[in-house]
């Protein structure tokens, strides 16, 4: 491509949730659906999808960011709930992570009360034996433990009383996105297998040769082909960086489990229950639960992992429902590519990397990647290299922060019942950036300026929830600070406000199931 070649045509390879989300996010910003405004042209977006490759149902949990992502694309939340078997998720509820016993804590999506101005963590430390951190500072903790919804039927689409994301059926979600992208956003959908990649003299991808649709030319190619990374991995041979030295889990046993009764409660958080060599996810959709065991194959066998999974399932549903369970095994290499944007090709989704779904980071990374491509879409080929450099720096940083944050869950555990938990606290398995933070937090609690970037994936509030949920202790300050004194005088009032708000929400929020049923019947209002 010549340096002044305009970027007018984007080709996305792969039609899973990553491909369609990327297509929709870019189109929401760039596509005027074929109508040229003055002499400005529309960016043309084509998605080519193999008719033969089944999509992998990863990422059944989203972050709250999905609300605005879908809203910008013009998708109705009522349609999402009805068509994608979706329910509301308010965060993650961790069971057995601390001691392996009956301990439980939450990482809610809503930051602590008054978090913009007051750090309640040091104030809470004084009452740490009387009240759980998340309960003292957030009203969402109680909603999560009681399976209540984050909003009411009269709350408009995408608005909320407590912040939320979704649990959804990834296959149905990709289908909803596809329909919307093709019918409303003017995206061209081609079903064909890519059989060769044609390069220009400078090494850029010029076009894709397909079996049934001929050559598909483009200015920018987005690799959403999944873990095989057809363009970035197979074609450009960008190396893969394994991160298994930090995060051991590399195998998942996934199952879909029916409810015992069709009106059983739907949990309004992802349940994560620690096991001897991994953990079990439990995601409540309206019609079924997605339950899976993600574990370290170096620490346990498939048989043992499968036994633990079945024991979990049998303890939560009837024997009859449990007996219908079939288990699917997915092996993965935890880690990411050495870079994500190379020449005129950028990888989004599993082609960029994959890691255990402990904090449901897969779909949010797709959203963030696509949003940056959409926002920073290079004007021409020359400037693309600069955008690529910045994109790579940003997402390498993000992968490092995700790894730090996931690892945090493991190193705070008191579990010593297996080599898995012992190995997890070995110094060699802890990223230096994380051990430094832990040393810091022994003396001061996480707070706004801890984080390096303004658009950090995990804000300091998330670190507070996990640290104090897991029982971590921060020493109280030995010197007098003005901000401490101010927080001290405000704290009692803020704790009381939070308690009052909690009681109000507990009295007025329907259960997750009740709300989903009402949305199915009446729909949510747009205003």
């Amino acid at each position, binding site marked *: 491509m010549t340096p002044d070649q305009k970027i007018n045509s984007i080709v996305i390879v792969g039609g899973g949730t990553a491909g369609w989300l990327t297509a929709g996010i870019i189109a929401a910003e760039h596509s005027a659906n074929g109508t040229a405004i003055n002499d400005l042209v529309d960016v043309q977006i084509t998605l080519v999808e193999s008719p033969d490759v089944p999509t992998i149902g990863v990422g059944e949990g989203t972050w709250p960011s999905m609300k605005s992502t879908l809203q910008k694309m013009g998708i109705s939340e009522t349609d999402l709930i009805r068509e994608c078997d979706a329910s509301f998720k308010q965060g993650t509820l961790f069971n057995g992570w601390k001691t392996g016993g009956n301990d439980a804590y939450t990482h809610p999506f809503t930051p602590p009360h008054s978090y913009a101005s007051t750090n309640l963590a040091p104030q809470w430390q004084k009452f740490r034996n009387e009240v759980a951190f998340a309960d003292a500072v957030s009203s969402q903790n109680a909603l999560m433990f009681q399976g209540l919804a984050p909003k*009411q*039927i*009269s*709350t408009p689409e995408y608005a909320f009383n407590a912040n939320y994301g979704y649990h959804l059926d990834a296959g149905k979600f990709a289908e909803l996105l596809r329909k919307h992208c093709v019918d409303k956003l003017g995206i061209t959908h081609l079903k064909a297998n890519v059989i060769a990649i044609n390069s220009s003299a400078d090494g850029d991808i010029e076009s894709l040769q397909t079996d049934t649709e001929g050559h598909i030319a483009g200015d920018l190619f987005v690799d959403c082909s999944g873990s095989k990374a057809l363009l970035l991995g197979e074609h450009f041979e960008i190396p893969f960086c394994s991160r298994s030295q930090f995060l051991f889990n590399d195998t998942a046993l996934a199952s879909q489990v029916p409810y015992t009764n069709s009106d059983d409660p739907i949990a309004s958080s992802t349940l994560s229950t620690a096991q001897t060599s991994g953990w079990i996810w439990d995601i409540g959709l309206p019609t079924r639960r997605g339950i899976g065991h993600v574990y370290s194959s170096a620490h346990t066998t498939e048989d043992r992992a499968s036994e633990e999974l079945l024991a979990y399932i049998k303890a939560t549903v009837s024997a009859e429902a449990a007996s219908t369970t079939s288990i699917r095994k997915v092996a993965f290499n935890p880690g990411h590519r050495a870079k994500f944007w190379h020449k005129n090709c950028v990888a989004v989704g599993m082609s960029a990397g994959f890691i255990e779904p402990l904090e449901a980071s897969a779909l949010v990374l797709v959203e963030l990647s696509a949003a940056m491509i959409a926002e920073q879409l290079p004007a021409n080929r020359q400037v693309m290299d600069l955008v690529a450099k910045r994109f790579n720096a940003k997402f390498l940083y993000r992968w490092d922060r995700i790894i730090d944050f996931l690892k945090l869950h493991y190193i705070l555990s008191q579990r010593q019942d297996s080599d898995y938990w012992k190995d997890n606290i070995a110094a060699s398995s802890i990223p230096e950036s994380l051990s430094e933070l832990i040393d810091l937090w022994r003396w001061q609690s996480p707070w706004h300026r801890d984080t390096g970037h303004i658009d950090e994936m995990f804000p300091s509030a998330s670190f507070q929830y996990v640290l104090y949920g897991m029982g971590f202790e921060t020493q109280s300050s030995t010197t007098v600070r003005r901000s401490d004194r101010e927080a001290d005088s405000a704290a009692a009032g803020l704790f009381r406000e939070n308690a009052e708000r909690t009681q109000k929400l507990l009295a007025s929020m329907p259960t997750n199931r009740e709300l989903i049923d*009402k949305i199915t*019947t*009446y*729909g*949510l*209002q*747009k*205003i």
Partner: protein
Amino acid sequence: MSNYVLLNNSAHKDLRVITTRSESYGDNVMHAMTFPIEFRDVQSSYPIFFCKDSESGQFYPAALFGLEQNQNLFLTEGGWDASYIPMMIKRHPFLIGYQTDPEHVGGKKPVVSIDMDNPRINDSEGEPLFSDNGEATDYLKESISMLEAIHHGHEHNKGFVETLLEHDLLEAFTLEVVLNDGSKNQLTGFYTIAEQKLHELEGDTFAMLNKRGYLQAIFMAVASHSRLRPLVEKRNALIL
């Protein structure tokens, strides 16, 4: 709590209904559902807004009587001080219910129920329901025709609200009322006609709204806003 039973002229032959308006009979309500068929009368006394049913989230038009929950500024010691009382208030203690119609497969037939726990009901005071020979009194006949109007009003409201939403003609509305004593009341959870959108409508849409009988209702709802000021004045008059 309510206890609705089907009305019949033997079990209920001696019942009477007190039609006096007062707090003790549950008239201290802030707003009540209304219907385009009565908008002309309603807008002469009350502001008409739209609110959401808490059970279904569905919109319906409502006549506003007060500025906070359980406050009806039209209630005085002498009764309800307005020239018109909305049907959904006047209907008490009756309710229109639906039974399977034996003459039409899948059909529903409206039937009249009465709330036996309603404090208006007794056997000595107020309007009788049946004459000595068991025939409905004029009071009951009027009540029944009102229930029928309410039945049609519900159906009409559904189409009315759907059409308003389809054309983005509703918008959220927050009213901050500063009373003479400086205290503030904030009305939230109410919606109103989006006038800007209304003025931008194409001629075809106006014609459609007119044909369906919605256009007049829309403008009467807009005009009813002028009843807000008298309502606030009534509230101010209560300040000592």
